[in-house]
């Protein structure tokens, strides 16, 4: 059967825009689901994706990817590769699956919204593929861990985590609801596909794929590499949307949407990827520090791309650069100390050689962060590991929902005050970890002010009994599921603080 070249029919078949006569434009594209920001509809019809694909090509490509991927999964499943993964890498993969897998399905809801409420037929066409992509990612990232449940039962958190009130998952849902579940199609194209996927998923997926291969986890490496090829395609919905907004004089709208989500994405990636790269990935397999990765892939490549569209770095840029030096070190301390509240076994990552690496990558780390590990290590060596476990909760930020670590920034010399920021609004007190988090909240207080953080729930009597065990049960964590030290305190017994550094 003769086939026309794609270029001869592609534009015709994907452009199904027309003027409505039986219904109004507002009825078809209600603002709540499809905020056009006042851009004329004909302008939206110029939407043109930089990467073209047809349905036949899509199916062919995806089938090929899955065939390769499931072959790897099948072979690895019969090997001892999983059993031989190092504890730190196991922690990284368990954290990843729980935080990401079901969120992919939720991203599918977002893509489906753009597939219906996107302002141009060409955009809706691309979003349809995006919806199929995200469904695939959800399926893959629940199926792969399911295959290994007999080796690590807590891999069921790939499916379970999103349905619990575990504190990190409250943070993830708060972010993703803002980014797509409760978002309109146009804002989503800027915030999900451009800001989050173009900017940040590269960090998690490309970085972790490379690390996975070095570690020998070819199953996980192949999985997230395959996912990233989809992300790279459907993330391109952001660029044409951004161009249309800017061309229509809505640069301020685009900048605001970007600034709000870039900061939010940063906080969650510092928590997830920051720990994986700088503490969980075995030392011999690390190529970049988290900070170096951020500088290369986000601060240089991505922001350069952003400036090409006539936009500027966010107003909080200096604060972002500042936090890159310290915030994920504090988050790691917090996750380790409050390890019963997570579903993986955090490793300390503070063996002497690991501390030397941290000191090299983050000059001053031993003085600013090593001192906490020194005290905890002394307690372990003195036979009191219980002193490295929590008896209360950290207060969390009412924007990012992550524990308030401002004192760490102050103690390390990066902030002028250890105090969090407070806001009293409509008879309720809100606490924030940083100016940008408070600013994000204040951009849409009606959207955020009703949300209860894990601490608000604790104080409000939602969590019963109001104790550590009560809170763990509320988070869906049975004693068998609660995180424990990933190396049975090997770090503490291997390192003894000495003047000017750490020795054995």
């Amino acid at each position, binding site marked *: 059967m003769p086939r026309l070249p794609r270029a001869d029919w592609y534009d015709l078949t994907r452009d199904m825009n027309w003027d409505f006569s039986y219904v109004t434009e507002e009825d078809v594209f209600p603002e709540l689901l499809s905020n056009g920001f006042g851009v004329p509809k004909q302008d939206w019809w110029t939407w043109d994706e930089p990467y073209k694909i047809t349905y036949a090509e899509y199916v062919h490509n995806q089938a090929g990817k899955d065939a390769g991927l499931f072959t790897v999964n099948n072979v690895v499943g019969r090997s001892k590769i999983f059993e031989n993964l190092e504890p730190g890498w196991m922690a990284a993969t368990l954290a990843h699956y729980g935080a990401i897998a079901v969120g992919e399905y939720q991203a599918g809801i977002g893509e489906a919204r753009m597939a219906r409420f996107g302002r141009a037929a060409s955009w809706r066409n691309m979003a349809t593929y995006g919806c199929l992509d995200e469904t695939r990612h959800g399926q893959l990232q629940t199926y792969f861990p399911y295959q290994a449940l007999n080796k690590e039962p807590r891999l069921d958190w790939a499916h379970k985590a999103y349905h619990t009130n575990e504190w990190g998952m409250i943070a993830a849902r708060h972010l993703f609801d803002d980014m797509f579940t409760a978002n309109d199609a146009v804002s989503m194209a800027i915030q999900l596909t451009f800001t989050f996927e173009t900017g940040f998923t590269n960090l998690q997926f490309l970085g972790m794929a490379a690390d996975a291969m070095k570690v020998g986890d070819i199953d996980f490496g192949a999985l997230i590499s395959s996912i990233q090829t989809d992300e790279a395609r459907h993330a391109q919905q952001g660029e044409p949307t951004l161009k249309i907004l800017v061309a229509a004089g809505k640069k301020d709208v685009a900048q605001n949407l970007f600034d709000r989500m870039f900061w939010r994405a940063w906080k969650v990636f510092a928590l997830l990827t920051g720990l994986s790269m700088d503490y969980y990935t075995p030392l011999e397999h690390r190529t970049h520090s988290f900070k170096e990765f951020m500088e290369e892939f986000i601060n240089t490549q991505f922001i350069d791309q952003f400036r090409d569209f006539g936009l500027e770095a966010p107003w909080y840029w200096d604060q972002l650069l500042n936090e890159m030096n310290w915030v994920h070190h504090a988050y790691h301390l917090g996750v380790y100390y409050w390890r019963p509240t997570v579903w993986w076994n955090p490793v300390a990552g503070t063996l002497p050689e690991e501390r030397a690496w941290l000191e090299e990558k983050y000059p001053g780390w031993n003085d600013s962060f090593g001192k*906490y590990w020194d*005290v905890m290590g002394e307690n372990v060596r003195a036979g009191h590991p219980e002193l490295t476990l929590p008896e209360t909760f950290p207060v969390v930020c009412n924007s990012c929902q992550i524990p308030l*670590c401002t004192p760490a920034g102050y103690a390390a010399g990066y902030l002028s005050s250890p105090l969090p920021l*407070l806001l009293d609004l409509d008879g309720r007190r809100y606490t924030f970890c940083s100016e940008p988090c408070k600013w994000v909240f204040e951009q849409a207080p009606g959207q955020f002010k009703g949300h209860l953080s894990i601490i608000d729930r604790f104080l409000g009597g939602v969590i019963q009994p109001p104790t550590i065990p009560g809170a763990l049960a509320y988070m869906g964590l049975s004693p068998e599921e609660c995180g424990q030290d990933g190396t049975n305190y090997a770090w503490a017994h291997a390192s003894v603080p000495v003047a000017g550094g750490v020795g054995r």
Partner: protein
Amino acid sequence: MALFPVQGIVEGDFVVVLVPVDDTDPMTVVAEKIAYHGIGKRVAPQDRPLKVRWNGTVLADDSTIAGLGCAPMDVLEVLYA
């Protein structure tokens, strides 16, 4: 007497912690209750008395939450004198 939640920061620590105190506790007791969650656990202890700072002011040892008019979830810093 009433339980009163505050946000506690131990000087030198890395995190803000939730601490229930009693609104009639003198600041010496408030300091101990907050310090319990940081000193000797992540922050090395020192042989000096503890003080409480609120809104930039170091409080008298015998002052109380109720007497000062603190609001729930105010931030109290514990530091060595």
